[in-house]
């Protein structure tokens, strides 16, 4: 029982976006742009509150930006400070950009001389860094996506096509067409397939100035869809996670996936 509890705690600690305390996020300066080459600037952090820099910076090693034409765009002026990472992006194309930090890796735990060892890294490094015959070895694949969407001019769909791995939010309502008082519909895919019964948490930013988180809990239906009626304008954070056994990593017991997205809701 103790070990089960311990591994559960470890699981939460190892995947920050799935933890109930730490929130992982990208915060775009704004999501609706116009002009020949407007610039987006983004903050990236892990924190308890939304959207305040008070815990860890989010590393940008796995930043993946998909331009409106489907090609990969490159961030500029990347920097990581004590509490946050930042980067800029000139929006040279018209349409919607998908900005994401995609972490693809694994974590492992085992016992060595009576002590518990923990490791996390890329799947390729397991063979060389984790002893295959260790006691109570437990390997779990992890796949996390932290993202946001921004649009220059009219919203477009090309950058929103699913890549088919991990958890992905697929728009029914375009993520840059969200307005207070209206209802948005999104679909969650797990490995490219609609997933029912996913538990989703929606929290509006500015938690520091509220006594409670005021989180909204919704669940996906048979088609993997869920709806949110936006009560107020502002930046909102959507989080969910999922576990399955579909892992290609040898000796791994399963896979844990997480998703966290930031969405701007505008006033009417």
């Amino acid at each position, binding site marked *: 029982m103790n070990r089960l509890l311990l591994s559960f705690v470890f699981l939460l600690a190892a995947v920050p976006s799935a933890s109930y305390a730490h929130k992982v996020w990208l915060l775009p300066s704004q999501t*609706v742009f*116009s*002009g*020949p080459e407007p610039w987006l600037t983004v903050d990236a952090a892990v924190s308890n509150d939304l959207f305040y820099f008070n815990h860890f910076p989010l590393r940008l090693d796995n930043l993946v930006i998909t331009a409106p034409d489907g090609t990969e765009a490159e961030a500029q002026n990347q920097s990581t400070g004590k509490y946050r990472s930042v980067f800029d992006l000139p929006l040279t194309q018209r349409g919607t950009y998908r900005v994401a930090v995609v972490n693809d890796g694994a974590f492992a735990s085992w016992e060595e001389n009576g002590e518990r060892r923990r490791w996390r890294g890329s799947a390729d490094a397991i063979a060389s860094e984790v002893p295959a015959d260790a006691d109570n070895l437990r390997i779990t694949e992890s796949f996390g996506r932290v993202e946001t969407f921004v649009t220059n*001019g009219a*919203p477009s769909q090309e950058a929103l096509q699913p890549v088919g791995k991990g958890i992905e939010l697929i728009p029914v309502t375009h993520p840059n*067409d969200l*307005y207070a008082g209206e209802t948005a519909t999104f679909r969650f895919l797990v490995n490219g397939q609609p997933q029912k019964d996913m538990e989703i948490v929606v929290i509006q930013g500015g938690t520091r100035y509220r006594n409670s988180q005021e989180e909204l809990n919704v669940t996906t239906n048979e088609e993997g869809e869920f709806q949110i009626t936006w009560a107020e304008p502002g930046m909102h954070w959507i989080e969910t996670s999922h576990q399955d056994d579909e892992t290609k990593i040898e000796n791994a017991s399963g896979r844990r996936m997480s998703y966290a997205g930031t969405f701007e809701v*505008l006033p*009417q």
Partner: protein
Amino acid sequence: MLNRIALMLGITLLGVCQATAEDWQATVEIPRLNVSEYHRPYVAIWIQDENRKCVANLAVWYQLTKSGEGEGTKWLPDLRQWWRRSGRSLQMPVDGVSSATRPAGKHELMFNDANQRFSKLPAGKYSLMVEASREVGGREVLELPFEWPSKTTQKLKAAGKEELGEITFVIPPTK
């Protein structure tokens, strides 16, 4: 050469005189605001149908000159309603629609109802929309409902509280 110019001028004047009877006459008042940092507002005027779909753009006033951050298209999304209904899918400037921002005061506008942008509208209920947004200021939207085709002269009127003053539209009977 001179003759030709004179002729053209004559035709132009004649055109203006002839048009008045069928023109939509409008006044849009931009209030004089006593604020420390004043910028002229961006203003959009359009017609939308009952589903709030933009069916015709009448005017967009924005900063046309270059500044440190390029031309003023950067701030067009601040006209939130107009941007969503129409602006974001346009390539600015738009001939006959976009022009420079205007100072405080009453501005008279004329829209010839032979203009195909609205002369071909199907019969139904529409609204004239006027939206203003000002840098380091506020934003205001006014809606003036009307019916098309126009059986009698329709006089529309609305008054803003912050960023817009009195707005009037006179829509003559449709021929």
